[in-house]
């Protein structure tokens, strides 16, 4: 069995195969070919994928909550229509991902149960509150921007259904980032109060977004093995750097200041250097102590439980109709 102890020091390699099936699997990964649902795969590979894909799906679904809060308060009909379309997309993304995870033999109910019982995680970013309209801009621009950085390499992931879901998601995601940037642009070109609102949103969201890429490579528990399996293609730190390098000039264009006094272009590295990241805060929020963890989960559970009678009634109705149709045919 593979272990989780490998890290990214040096090129990731697969453990030697002990059975012919395992050798065939390793050869497929080495040749960069896709693994499909009914192909043999190591149990740990399956488990890693179920964990990652279901967490990803949960993040899409929980991610609808902070934005859904603002649909009724969007400042114009245009912004309202855009926000509704975005939230609807997130629901769709959750569906694509749950469906990809279901091909690995886990049921939708099992995954939802794990989320609702607090056993499964979702992206820690959604445990922060959305206090002003500018937060809708910051989320689209920064959170979705970071998500795209994370997700583009996943389009080449070794597991076919996950890779295909990610291709579809990435296609839709770029609208999300642009609409967020568009909100920030309007605010930063607006009144002094509007610009201050945009700056405040950037101040609150910047560090949580930088943390979204996960712990530094030297501390990342899952990265090494995931890289060997072709699930994770680019390391946390490399993706984070890429995001920062792309985002700093955009903030300058908006005339906003990134809340990091140590942020500085490093000509030698060809990258921006940043100040220290507060990993204690990251682990606190992941561990359930963020500002909104309890509220988000409670809202999700309530929505699921309040909808139970609809799901049951729809199923009962369909069964009755089916039975009637069969009787008529007989």
């Amino acid at each position, binding site marked *: 069995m593979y272990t989780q102890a490998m890290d990214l020091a040096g090129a990731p390699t697969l453990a030697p195969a002990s059975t012919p099936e395992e050798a065939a699997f390793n050869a497929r990964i080495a040749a960069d070919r896709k693994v499909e649902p009914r192909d043999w795969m190591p149990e740990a590979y399956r488990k890693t994928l179920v964990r990652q894909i279901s967490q990803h799906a949960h993040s899409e679904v929980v991610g609808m909550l902070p934005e859904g809060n603002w649909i009724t308060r969007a400042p114009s009909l245009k912004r309202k229509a855009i926000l509704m379309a975005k939230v609807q997309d997130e629901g769709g993304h959750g569906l694509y991902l749950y469906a990809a995870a279901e091909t690995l033999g886990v049921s*939708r109910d099992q995954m939802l149960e794990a989320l609702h019982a607090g056993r499964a995680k979702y992206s820690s970013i959604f445990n922060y509150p959305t206090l002003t309209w500018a937060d809708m801009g910051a989320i689209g621009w920064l959170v979705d921007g970071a998500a795209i950085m994370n997700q583009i390499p996943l389009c080449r992931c070794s597991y076919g259904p996950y890779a295909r879901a990610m291709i579809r998601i990435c296609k839709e995601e770029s609208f999300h980032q642009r609409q967020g940037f568009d909100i920030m642009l309007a605010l930063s070109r607006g009144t002094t109060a509007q610009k201050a609102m945009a700056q405040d949103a950037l101040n609150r969201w910047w560090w949580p977004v930088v943390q979204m890429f996960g712990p530094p490579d030297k501390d990342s528990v899952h990265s090494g093995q995931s890289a060997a399996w072709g699930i994770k293609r680019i390391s946390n730190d490399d993706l984070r750097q890429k995001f920062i390098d792309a985002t700093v000039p955009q903030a300058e264009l908006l005339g906003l200041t990134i809340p990091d006094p140590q942020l500085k272009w490093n000509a030698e590295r060809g990258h921006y250097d940043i100040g220290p990241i507060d990993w204690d805060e990251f682990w606190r929020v992941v561990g359930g102590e963020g500002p909104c963890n309890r509220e988000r989960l409670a809202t999700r559970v309530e929505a699921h439980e309040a909808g139970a009678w609809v799901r049951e009634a729809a199923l009962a109705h369909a069964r009755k109709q089916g039975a009637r149709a069969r009787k008529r045919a007989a």
Partner: protein
Amino acid sequence: MERKEWPLWEVFIRSKQGLDHRHVGSLHAVDAKQAVQMARDVYTRRMEGVSIWVVPSEAITASDPDDKAEMFDPMADKVYRHPTFYKLPKEVEHM
């Protein structure tokens, strides 16, 4: 125990260009009518298609991945089935 999870359906969409219906994903729905409605909401939000098929996932019979070699390898050495196998004299410009 009674199953409470809605049945799984596979969704196929045909784009405007008139190509074949293509598998785009799956979803849970109580019956075919609802599956079509949901497929419309999930898979055609950006004018991806003008026709939808839904099929109960359990109705699909798939080839066995373990039979891949005997199923598909025999085709690997039949290059004469492709037009590029045939060398045409230079004088024949298009064929």
